[in-house]
């Protein structure tokens, strides 16, 4: 009988295995552990240094392929990173995360419930047609329609109408102090109705044209391969210098993004995780920078059951090791955080927010013995749930660390917890599908808001909020949300936001873990883009150029 596995090959394989084992021991022994390595420090600020000259073409890496550019269907980091350059909004986010009027020349409250947007003259869509107030109204009504992804921004809107040739008046049920800021997000995006209606249901998919006014137009989108945006030939804003000629987007997981940047096959990327910056620090041809963001990693509690009692949530929040998580998952490039939004959201009254943040309790960076005792007492008082607490992970680096840390924290305070793995493709359905939420009591995610106002986030704790899955209900909290939305005075609004923040952290509908700064990697000869999270809404490619003219 012939041997299907020849002896020589078997011997070779065995030798290769042994050799690999020896090699492994050598490789591993050479590197210091992260805990021994010096702390990583990167330049931190709203932008990278300004560019000196234009660049013809760059290749930019995304964490995933955009799913659509119809933002009323869905949007995420990949979609926003690309179309921040193509589409524009009534208001515009700046690299320092402040907002300024843009397609709207001005936005003013004319009385307690009405805000008037004066539409900028001379703006044209990419098909050459002028942008009118009617187009703006049509866009706003599309965003506000029931089921649209941005409809929550219009929750207080009673009516919208064109009240002049270049004037839109929005009437609210009550004064909404952050509505104007919200118009710097996707809810304020102005679309060309003629293009959208001509495409019908296909609008937003590969092969269809964009319907926007931005400094770049959508070029070729090869599904599964690449997407190109090109400098708009007749961009309406002559005063705006547009440096990069075209940007070719490709997508890959973070390992491949790091490899592409290391090998010089990509020119830049906003990194999905700050931890990816660590290996890139060793690459001489790559520069790195971090900037403020509203991003925070959180564990969202679902309505499944065991976490309905806030004492169990509080106990877990007291016991989880945030400091350990930031070291393990982010290489120290993120910070343990007590609230569900990052520091970038403090767009006003910064000192007041900082002082209030410092006083918050119940979310220690590293739990000490007293924290654990308090957590155990809360569990004893509430009674441990009959079934294990299920925490979801998709196997990704950060979620793996967070879920394991949660299980370890639960174990320390006498709770039983298990990890359930949910495919990455299904993970986003936690927000929209109750059946998916039925698989876990907690799911971790990186949450961010487009507005630099904490009130824009804390509305999520209202009893009617769509992401208040665990059913946190406090009539006083609901009243405070309304009050905060009506407060146009910054100091007054900050005071209300701080009280909302305190109540949120106390009730812990979500368990806050870490704030995650925005991190950008660029080929050394390129510069100019924002380092802050503004890249999700700001046309960053227009600022991307060379370090030498």
């Amino acid at each position: 009988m012939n041997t299907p596995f020849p002896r020589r090959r078997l011997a070779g394989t065995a030798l290769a295995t042994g050799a690999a084992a020896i090699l492994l021991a050598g490789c591993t022994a050479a590197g210091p552990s992260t805990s021994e390595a010096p702390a990583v420090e990167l330049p931190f600020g709203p932008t990278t240094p300004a560019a000196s000259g234009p660049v013809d073409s760059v290749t930019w890496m995304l964490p995933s392929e955009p799913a659509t550019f119809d933002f009323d269907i869905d949007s995420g980091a990949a979609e926003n990173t690309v179309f921040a350059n193509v589409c524009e909004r009534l208001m515009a986010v700046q690299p320092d995360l402040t907002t300024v009027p843009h397609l709207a020349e001005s936005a003013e409250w004319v009385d307690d419930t009405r805000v008037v947007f004066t539409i900028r003259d001379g703006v044209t869509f990419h098909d050459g047609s002028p942008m009118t107030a009617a187009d703006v109204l049509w866009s706003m009504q599309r965003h506000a329609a029931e089921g649209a992804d941005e409809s929550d921004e219009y929750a207080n809107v009673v009516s919208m109408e064109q009240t002049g040739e270049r004037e839109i008046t929005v009437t609210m049920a009550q004064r909404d102090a952050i509505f104007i800021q919200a118009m710097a997000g996707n809810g304020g995006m102005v679309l060309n109705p003629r293009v959208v209606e001509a495409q019908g249901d296909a609008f937003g998919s590969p092969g269809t044209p964009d319907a926007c006014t931005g400094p770049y137009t959508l070029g070729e989108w090869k599904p599964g391969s690449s997407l190109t945006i090109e400098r708009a030939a007749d961009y309406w804003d002559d005063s705006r210098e547009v440096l990069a000629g075209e940007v070719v987007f490709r997508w890959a997981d973070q390992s491949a993004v790091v490899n592409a940047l290391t090998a010089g096959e990509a020119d830049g990327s906003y990194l999905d995780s700050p931890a990816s910056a660590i290996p890139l620090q060793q690459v001489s041809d790559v520069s790195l920078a971090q900037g403020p963001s509203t991003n925070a990693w959180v564990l969202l509690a679902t309505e499944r059951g065991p976490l309905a009692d806030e004492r169990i949530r509080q106990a877990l929040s007291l016991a989880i090791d945030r400091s350990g998580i930031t070291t393990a998952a982010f290489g120290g490039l993120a910070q343990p955080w007590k609230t569900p939004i990052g520091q970038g959201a403090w767009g006003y009254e910064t000192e007041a927010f900082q002082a209030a943040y410092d006083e918050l309790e119940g979310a220690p960076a590293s739990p000490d013995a007293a924290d654990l005792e308090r957590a155990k007492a809360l569990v004893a008082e509430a009674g441990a749930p009959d079934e294990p607490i299920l925490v979801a992970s998709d196997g990704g680096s950060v979620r793996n660390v967070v879920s394991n840390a949660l299980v370890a924290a639960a174990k320390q305070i006498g709770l039983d917890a298990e990890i359930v793995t949910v495919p990455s493709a299904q993970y986003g359905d936690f927000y929209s599908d109750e059946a998916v939420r039925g698989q876990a009591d907690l799911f971790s995610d990186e949450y961010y808001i487009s507005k630099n106002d904490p009130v824009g986030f804390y509305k999520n704790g209202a009893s009617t909020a769509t992401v208040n899955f665990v059913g946190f209900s406090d009539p006083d909290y609901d009243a405070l949300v309304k009050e905060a939305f009506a407060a146009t005075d910054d100091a007054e609004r900050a005071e209300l936001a701080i009280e909302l923040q305190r109540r949120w952290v106390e009730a812990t509908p979500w368990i806050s873990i870490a704030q995650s700064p925005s991190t950008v990697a660029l080929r050394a000869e390129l510069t100019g883009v924002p380092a802050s999270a503004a890249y999700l809404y700001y046309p960053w490619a227009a600022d991307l150029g060379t370090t030498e003219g």
Partner: protein
Amino acid sequence: MTTTATGALLRRDGLARRRDPLYAVSLAFLGLVVLVAAFAPLLAPYPPDAIDFTAIWGSPSPAHLLGTDQLGRDLFSRLLLGTRESLIGPLALLAGATVIGVAIGLVAAWNGGWVDVLLARITDVMFAFPGLLFVVLVIAVFGKGPWTAVVALALAYAPVIAKFTRSIALSELARPYVDAYRVQGASAVHIAVRRVLPNMTPALLGYLVVLFGEGLMSLATLSYLGFGAQPPSSEWGLMVQEGQDGIVLGHFAPTLVPGLAIAAVVVAVNIVGVRLSERLGARA
């Protein structure tokens, strides 16, 4: 002449004496792995899921012989404890697949005619269905977890074993001793189960040993993809998946250690399986 499997194995006089160092080394290695699996809780210096955030991505040291992973868990302890799940899974799936596959193969070979044709077509259909897709479908219906993966893979492996069983059963049934038992009035079940099956065992055994390696790889693959063992299990496929983020950071051990463990066991199992098939098959 008839004989039983155990007897056949014991009487293969050349088996023990033939010089084959690779076979001997592989057998010794597998024996060691089994011992490690049996005594893992006593050998492991740390609980496999003990997180230590002060020691993440640690290099090998006296405290952590193979270093630590991204959660500061001791890789050596995880490797040792992972041996259990990594070996028990393939064993369980092969047990299930063998019961189903051998039954189908024997029935098809014994009955012939339309029963044989029907069973052959059923197994052909199962063969035509991509294995991984079938397993993922089963998991989608019954939920994720190590035992769902084992059951799904057992169902996927059963047709393979059925085909093999049928082919060797057909040649065994053609031997004179089967007719002799029939003439004596022995029942079909008695002849098939008590006489034919034991004589097929040596050939089956070698084949199953090779399949064990495949089963280990398949289960590790499912765990790697998130369908099998769930964190914080230290099953080797899951360890590879969890450790892979370290590669971009220059920490190779959390992925390579379990990866090499899988490779070493599969290579050793294949060597043993092939040698067993070669020797027992040639003498059957």
